[in-house]
């Protein structure tokens, strides 16, 4: 079987070389460098989830709940991986005919028809990558988006309710958003909404869902009265660092090939993050006189979120400014905004991913301008681009908000969202999972 396909690709390559005039898009063969880069990117994003996000969240909760958070993130990754290859990919990137503005089709259910030789197009004419690596790469995006929501529900969500929610939300919110923004024919794609690596699809989407979830599930027992500081900030830093390094795959891999734009995205992912981290550290230092580790780590994540939609579209200086704005906006969101409204969104998914995603999405419209060092887009006009970006934000907030609200309410009415009071006080590790993280 392998020998046969090698022959076929060999002959195809030979034909492509010998008769360039006759080479058609369908005969294009993946470049090994591009394929390797996409494989590496996929692996990096897997690392962002396991253990990056798991540890980032784990260190932020109380010690009696760390295992529950680790288990929730790990399980969601595994679950969404399978659903992606069963029906997610087809619905996200297929052609839905009359419904193509919203969703794809079911032609590639179970990855039907996709072989190791199948190719997917990139942003460059005539350049292709193996379709399977596109499937795998996008799988990780679907998984991390769903796993992020855990942050808004931590320390009180029922494990079964979370898994049911994850399956339904992935299906009804992630897939349509991914299709609308990234697939040909998708409503926002056709409007010219720019989202390089998922500021809207991933961050605003999950941030809003986490906020809605936090509001429906309600505050943790004792919130505002009992002290519930992070129990292991070193773990949170380990998680944040794995997220940063993994994010190179997330952003630069979104270029789908190893070109100068991918490198631009990589560079922007360093400097926007650094700018945001320093901005958060600085404002925290000014206000509380105590620049904290949690502050700089949170600032870094805010910068990573803000640069996500802009990574391959803005210039390095634009990235620094966008990162700094993202850091400051998210600092405001997790301190002032949260305090004013009094919601208990435990791990600040909305404050960092939601707000950071909104800042990044709109900022992309500004900093993509060639006048500001960006790569520019055809027929660019800053005013109308910002309007389009804003439209994208509103659609994401509206869609995710509505779907999440309905799902959380439905699940609450049927199996219940929250664990019993005694279980919450005891801690989810023992109550829900029958294990203890620290035996001393």
């Amino acid at each position, binding site marked *: 079987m392998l020998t046969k396909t090698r022959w076929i690709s060999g002959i195809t390559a030979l034909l492509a070389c010998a008769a360039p005039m006759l080479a058609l898009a369908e005969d294009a063969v993946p470049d090994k460098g591009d394929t390797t880069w996409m494989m590496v990117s996929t692996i990096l994003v897997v690392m962002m989830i396991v253990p990056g996000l798991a540890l980032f969240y784990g260190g932020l909760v109380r010690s009696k709940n760390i295992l529950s958070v680790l288990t929730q993130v790990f399980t969601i990754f595994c679950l969404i991986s399978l659903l992606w290859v069963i029906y997610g990919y087809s619905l996200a990137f297929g052609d839905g005919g009359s419904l193509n503005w919203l969703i794809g089709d079911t032609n590639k259910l179970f990855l039907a028809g996709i072989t190791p030789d199948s190719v997917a197009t990139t942003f460059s004419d005539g350049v292709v990558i193996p379709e399977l690596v596109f499937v795998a790469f996008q799988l990780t995006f679907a998984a991390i988006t769903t796993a992020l929501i855990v942050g808004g529900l931590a320390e009180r969500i029922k494990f079964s309710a979370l898994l049911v929610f994850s399956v339904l939300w992935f299906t009804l919110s992630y897939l349509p958003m991914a299709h609308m923004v990234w697939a040909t024919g998708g409503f926002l794609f056709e409007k010219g909404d720019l989202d390089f690596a998922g500021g809207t699809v991933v961050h605003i989407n999950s941030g809003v869902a986490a906020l809605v979830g936090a509001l429906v599930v309600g505050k943790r027992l004792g919130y505002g009265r009992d*002290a519930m500081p992070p129990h292991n900030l070193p773990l949170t830093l380990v998680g944040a660092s794995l997220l940063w390094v993994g994010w190179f795959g997330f952003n630069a891999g979104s270029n789908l090939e190893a070109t100068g734009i991918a490198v631009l995205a990589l560079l922007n992912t360093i400097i926007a993050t650094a700018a945001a981290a320093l901005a958060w550290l600085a404002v925290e230092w000014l206000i509380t006189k105590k620049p*904290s580790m*949690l502050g700089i780590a949170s600032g870094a994540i805010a910068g990573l979120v803000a640069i996500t939609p802009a990574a391959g579209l803005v210039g390095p200086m634009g990235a620094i400014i966008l990162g700094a704005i993202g850091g400051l906006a998210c600092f405001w969101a997790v301190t002032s905004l949260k305090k004013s409204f009094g919601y208990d969104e435990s791990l600040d998914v909305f404050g960092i991913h939601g707000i950071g995603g909104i800042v990044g999405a709109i900022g992309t419209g500004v900093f993509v301008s060639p006048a500001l060092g960006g790569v520019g887009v055809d027929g660019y006009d800053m005013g109308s681009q910002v309007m389009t970006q804003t439209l994208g934000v509103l659609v994401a907030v509206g869609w995710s908000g509505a779907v999440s609200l309905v799902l959380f309410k439905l699940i609450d009415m049927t199996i219940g969202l929250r664990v019993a009071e005694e279980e919450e006080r005891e801690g989810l590790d023992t109550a829900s999972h029958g294990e203890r993280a620290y035996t001393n």
Partner: protein
Amino acid sequence: MKMITAIIRPYKLDDLEMAVAQIGVQGMTVMEVQGYGAQHGHAEFYRGAEYRVEFVPRVQVLIAVDESIAEAVIEAIANVTRTGKVGDGRIFVTDIEQAIRIRTGETGVAAT
């Protein structure tokens, strides 16, 4: 027999141990505790959420002594742990009804 309970600053423990060893104390029990007296706690910030921490870490030392050396031990502890600043701690003295050395079964002063 008297039980001397001293609640002191953690970094003073070694000084205390050396001081009372010179008077003839042969054992003690030490535990890490939290407490407050005249001094106030402090504030900690986690992403803008301010936590008032009223308690400060302290070390509690239990020493069982014969009445004859009790005064000397108390004075030694106080002298070596005093800094003059708020937060130096407390010493409490209580009566011991009975004391038993588990290994040998000795009771009374021989067991302190």
